[in-house]
């Protein structure tokens, strides 16, 4: 059994692999990560990743950059650029030259930005994608600063735009912010829990010239990469 344990800023994910196949996975809020390993799993099987990688049981702990690279390659061996949109940061990894950039000083391109907006509207963050799909146009929102973006959002509501149009505009602003970090590539793979928001995927697709790929369970790619790394260690690679 090879186990990937990804305990990030917002959610904790576990994924079990046997003979190269995914046999189990589970997601819980980060502070309940203990629920993912409470059935007597042996640390020797676990490779951990995420913000809390060194605080949870593990045989080896590796960064999300490496797990994202391995997990993305599992889904698409030809993956070139990965955009991992997390709760507190966004990472862009260019597999063609082994480089990456991380945005963790500004909320404008992270899940925290969307949570701020959802909180303002008093709606679940999970409903942003559906509301986005109901808009046929977007309100213009500043794309460089989360604080200014919320201020502009209020101005646009006062100016007569609907909540759906403002959310559409927010997603567009979010995508423009991320696009500044993404190098030119034929395909870009989006991963991370925030990518479950279909509005974000739509906005990023509109902004980038690249083909956009989203794995079936984008929030599990890092846990998958961790499990694959454990498998590598077994193989002595």
């Amino acid at each position, binding site marked *: 059994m090879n186990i990937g344990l990804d305990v990030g800023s917002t959610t904790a994910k576990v994924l079990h692999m046997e003979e190269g196949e995914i046999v189990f996975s589970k997601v819980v809020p980060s502070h309940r990560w203990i629920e993912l390993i409470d059935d007597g799993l042996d640390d020797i099987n676990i490779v951990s990743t995420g913000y809390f990688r060194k605080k949870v049981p593990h045989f080896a702990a590796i*960064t*999300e950059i*490496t797990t994202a*690279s391995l997990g993305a390659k599992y889904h698409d061996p030809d993956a070139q650029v990965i955009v991992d949109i997390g709760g507190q940061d966004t990472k862009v990894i260019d597999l063609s030259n*082994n*480089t*990456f950039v*991380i945005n963790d000083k500004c909320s404008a391109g992270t899940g925290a930005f969307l949570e701020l907006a959802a909180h303002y509207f008093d709606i679940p963050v999970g409903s942003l994608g559906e509301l986005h799909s109901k808009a046929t146009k977007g309100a213009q929102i500043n794309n460089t600063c989360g604080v200014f973006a919320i201020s502009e959002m209020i101005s646009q509501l006062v100016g007569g735009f609907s909540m759906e149009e403002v959310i559409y505009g927010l997603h567009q602003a979010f995508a423009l912010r991320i696009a500044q970090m993404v190098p030119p590539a034929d395909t870009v793979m989006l991963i991370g829990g925030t990518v479950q928001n279909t509005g974000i995927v739509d906005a990023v697709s509109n902004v980038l010239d690249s083909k956009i790929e989203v794995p079936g369970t984008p929030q599990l790619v890092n846990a998958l990469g961790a499990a694959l*790394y454990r498998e590598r260690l077994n193989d002595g690679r």
Partner: protein
Amino acid sequence: MKETVGITALVPPELIYACGKRPMDVNNVVPESSLSPGSKLCAWTAIWRDMILNGGLDIDSLVVVAGGDCHNALVDGQKVELSGMATHYFFYPFDRDTDYLRSQLEKLTRFLGGIKDERMFSLISDLKLKGRALDELRVNDRARASDVFSALISFSDMAGDPDVFEKMLNSVPETDVEYSSRVALIGVPPIYPDFHETAESFGLHVVYDELPYEFLRLGGSDLDSLARSYRDYSFAGPIKNRVELIKNELQRRRVDGVIHYTQFACHHTLEDEIFREHLDYPILTVQGDLPRPSPEQLKLRLEAFAEMMEVMP
């Protein structure tokens, strides 16, 4: 007691010593400072400025390197001058004009009271040869980068005392170094005092420190030779020259990857895109603001960079 001359960036230290004074690179106190500057863009200049204004730096005069390098220093240096400190402004020529730099060195010499002890030129030159030997030692995996960096960064002022500094150089321990990847550190020096130790903890052996190498590379025995050498100070000239110099060093030192350190609100940050376009190596760009132990965000990046070079070469 010799008069102490504060310098805000590279000013030929051999000339200051030859003029009978002792240089103090005011940047060297910044990484260990806990001072929160009043108004700031770049923390490097803001902290030495406030330390001087608060009487926290024991200097008798200040030489501000303004032309060709740091414009924040030009403004913060004037704040120091307005407080009553004897201040001189030193300008490097962007076009590498030797005559212009010689005239700047003449003005500086007059500000410093004239050359009094020419023997200091050869004494400093000998120390720089020792520094280059130390630099080669870590290139050949025979010294820890953190130990070598601590010594090389002080070549801007020889720690204020060439005799003490020579003993410091002699005390750098020789030891076999184990690592996973060889990296170069380009850009202004990190404001985090434990940067090299942190990099070492992730298996990264820093075999090139760009700015301290400039301190070693340049020198001279009179105003003419100083002008011919220091006109090539890479941070003050065209970036294409700097890129070529870096390329040669990356190849000679057999690096696996490059770390570009940038300082918040420093114009050198804008050079990142040029390095990424012209240096064909994995590049990690990091940015610091205030001096403190290496933050978690930096550690994550260094760890991930080390993994990328090791796991997926």
